[in-house]
């Protein structure tokens, strides 16, 4: 009997093995699991400069990306004109709003600029300078055509205690800033060297470009939100409802993987203003920052501000324990805004402790503006 049952078992194993062999062809599996290296980043020469397409990208040639950009431009233009016609119908053909909306739709262009070879973007932020005004978050929303009806902001400014930089029990919805005992940490996508979000995507809808920017293709995203679960920085956002394109506030300068209007139920994220930076510009948040807390540049460039900042002040990253190697560096710069040891103590008249508000009476309510007012006093002293 035992030999009989063993024979049966062997027969069963053989049958199961045959099914396994039939379903998987060995050479194809090898193709799938190839290791990604620099040599394998395909390069192309476009107008004299050398550009590269990431091996992780599902689009293998410039032609494919161009075709994608064209189809996205068609969609964006259609949405834009729908909105413009609605605005013109509501406010009249000769209203300035109508003219502006039409101008935006005419200028609308979806670029497909590729990554330059040898570039690795990085950003640095001076935590001593940041006053938590959240202008970067608003500028980002406007630059990147984020849907205004959902309250999505790619940059979240976290207010944490100065003594303990722990991301727990933090305040994201503060209304007054800056406080003396608080540090303001704007958090957006850290454009990690090892991004967990792209590893988990089942359909290759998100990948790391050759210049380090992690992009999402809203024409491939299936909205499973696995990447949002995997991101240790909360940098990814889903369009939970149909996206409204408003021709009046639309930014017509678009990139195929950047601020082109996203589709419903797809994920979007910060791309370091890919539509600006790939053309030699800087990001909107860097440009808008009123205290100059942000610096943006190429990590591989000897003259970039990033390298100088890291060398001079040292830098830290968020959640180093997550092992993602972020390329967004935070550092404590040489001076606080406004300086805490100014000659006139009133010149650094920040808001007191959060608990002391009542004691100060109307003083706290002035917020950051109060600080500006007293700066004038400081000048006299």
């Amino acid at each position, binding site marked *: 009997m035992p030999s009989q049952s063993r024979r049966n078992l062997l027969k069963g194993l053989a049958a199961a093995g045959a099914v396994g062999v039939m379903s998987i062809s060995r050479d194809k599996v090898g193709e799938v699991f190839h290791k990604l290296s620099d040599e394998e980043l395909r390069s192309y020469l476009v107008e004299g400069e050398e550009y590269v397409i990431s091996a992780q990208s599902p689009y293998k040639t410039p032609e494919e990306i161009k075709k994608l950009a064209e189809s996205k431009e068609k969609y964006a233009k259609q949405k834009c004109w729908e909105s413009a016609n609605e605005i013109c119908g509501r406010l009249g053909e000769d209203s300035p709003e109508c003219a502006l909306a039409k101008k935006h739709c005419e200028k609308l262009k979806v670029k497909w600029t590729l990554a330059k070879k040898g570039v690795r973007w990085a950003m640095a932020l001076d935590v001593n300078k940041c006053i938590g005004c959240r202008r970067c978050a608003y500028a980002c929303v406007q630059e990147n055509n984020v849907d205004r009806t959902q309250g999505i902001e790619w940059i979240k400014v976290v207010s944490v205690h100065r003594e303990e930089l722990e991301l727990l029990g933090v305040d994201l919805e503060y209304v007054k800033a800056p406080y003396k005992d608080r540090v303001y940490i704007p958090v957006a996508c850290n454009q990690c060297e090892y991004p967990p979000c792209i590893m988990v995507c089942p359909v290759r809808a998100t990948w790391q470009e050759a210049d380090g920017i992690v992009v999402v293709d809203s024409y491939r995203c299936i909205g499973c939100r696995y990447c949002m679960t995997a991101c240790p920085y909360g940098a990814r956002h889903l369009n939970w409802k*149909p996206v409204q394109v408003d021709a009046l506030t639309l930014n017509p300068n678009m990139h195929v993987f950047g601020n082109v209007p996203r589709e419903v139920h797809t994920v979007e994220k910060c791309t370091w203003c890919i539509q600006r930076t790939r053309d030699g510009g800087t990001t909107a948040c860097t440009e808008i920052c009123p205290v100059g807390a942000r610096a943006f540049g190429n990590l591989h460039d000897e003259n970039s501000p990033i390298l100088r900042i890291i060398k001079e002040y040292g830098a830290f990253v968020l959640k180093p324990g997550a092992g993602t190697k972020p390329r967004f560096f935070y550092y404590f710069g040489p001076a606080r805004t406004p300086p805490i040891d100014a000659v006139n103590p009133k010149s650094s008249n920040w808001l007191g402790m959060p608990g002391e508000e009542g004691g100060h009476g109307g003083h706290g309510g002035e917020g950051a503006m109060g600080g500006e007012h007293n700066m004038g006093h400081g000048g006299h002293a």
Partner: protein
Amino acid sequence: MSNPIVELLKTIWWFIKYPFKGDWRGWTWIFAMAALAAYGLGIWAGVQAAPAIYTQLVYHMGVDPKLLEQAGISEYQGGMIYTDMNDWVVWGLYISFFVFWVGVAAAGVLFGIAAYVFRDKGFMRLAPLAEVQAVAAIAVALLLVLADIGRPIRTLLLLAMPIVTEFRFPNPQSMFDYDFTVLNGYLLVNIIGIFIAVHWYRRGPKFSPPKWLMYAFMVIAAPLAIGIHTVTAFISQPLTARLIWNNPLLAPRYVATALAAGPALLLIVSIIAEKFYKGFKVPKYVYEKTLIVSTAALIVGLYFTLSEAQELFWYTTEPVKRAQALNIFLSPLTCEAMKPILKDFAFFFTGTEQCTWGYPQVSYVAMMSWVWIILGSLTVLLAIFVPKLRKTYKGIVLLSALIIIAVVGEKTLPIIIPAYVPNVLGTIVPYTPTPLEWAVTVGAHAAGLMVYMLLARPVLKAIIAHYGSEEEH
């Protein structure tokens, strides 16, 4: 021996004929379930997924928008905004119950092992019904995933790409693809298993599937059964971002409680089936043995919970992990309930008499966890120390129901929600399922129960045809 092709056609006819043979009670059940499922599907397609379906069909596949508008699907109405999921709590009720039903499905093959590997005559009668349960459970799980995904049509298109276009494999690093493959593979394997069983059993007592075929079936099905739940745990287990999930105990924990809930559900279904099908008789020792296995799995699950609680509370200084752990076990409500029992100890451990533990907005998580711990322990004690209960049919049904409720308390929301509250940036965004989510979830469950009923009928008929005459002596 008759023509094999004729026999095959007869089996297919068996599957067409018998699902719809039943009295008014059966039809009432099927129609009620169909109505619920249709309601869930309608509210999902018409509200939650409407803009996604419209966008995909109109802008990517060139369908005439008028057709969709006539069907009540419009571009700018609806969306997942009607669920309470948000950018911080990204998985909710759907994925919670997905996890539970994957577990129930995994247990189906337990009976197959007992029947076909150990050649137990009693378990052989129950094994095909266990496969039916696995199919129904996988159906619920897949429906819930489909409901949860933002772009369902695109998902199906992209995941089918290696078949329809050139070989462009979905991301091999993503655990989702493996889960998709394993779940569908297991579904297919169980459908084949049901077909094999019916194909031979329906012909009478002298026919049974060849032994080598059943061995081959088990060699494929047994690893897949453990695999579906393991891979489902592997989705969340390696994420460094979610500290509470990031421990290697998650997969064993999933499997342990799955092996408690799945058999318990099958016992209840089998006892009901015995009432309705006079020829269908399962020896009592099968129930008793299964209940013991189920209780043993429950003990292992409780032990894992203890082990996890020790890791979370004893020395851990990781503040976010502690905060998330607090969410699992403590809430102001549980604190109030425990106060009279703990008395001074509560003060000793927390340093305060105030009930400020956990987060009041998601206190249901802690309540469900305590349901699991208290009801689970109670069931274990009853099963061990009250032999009367585990030896009578009523007692078996009672214990099985307790086990299922306890495992729902362990495996649904308390596993998913604490990973998101507090979230990665340390803020608390609460999550409470909306009526839409409940409706869609209930619809998916109803669809599963309908599948269960329709598939169980031909299978039970075949089992009766095979074993019915043996019952006489």
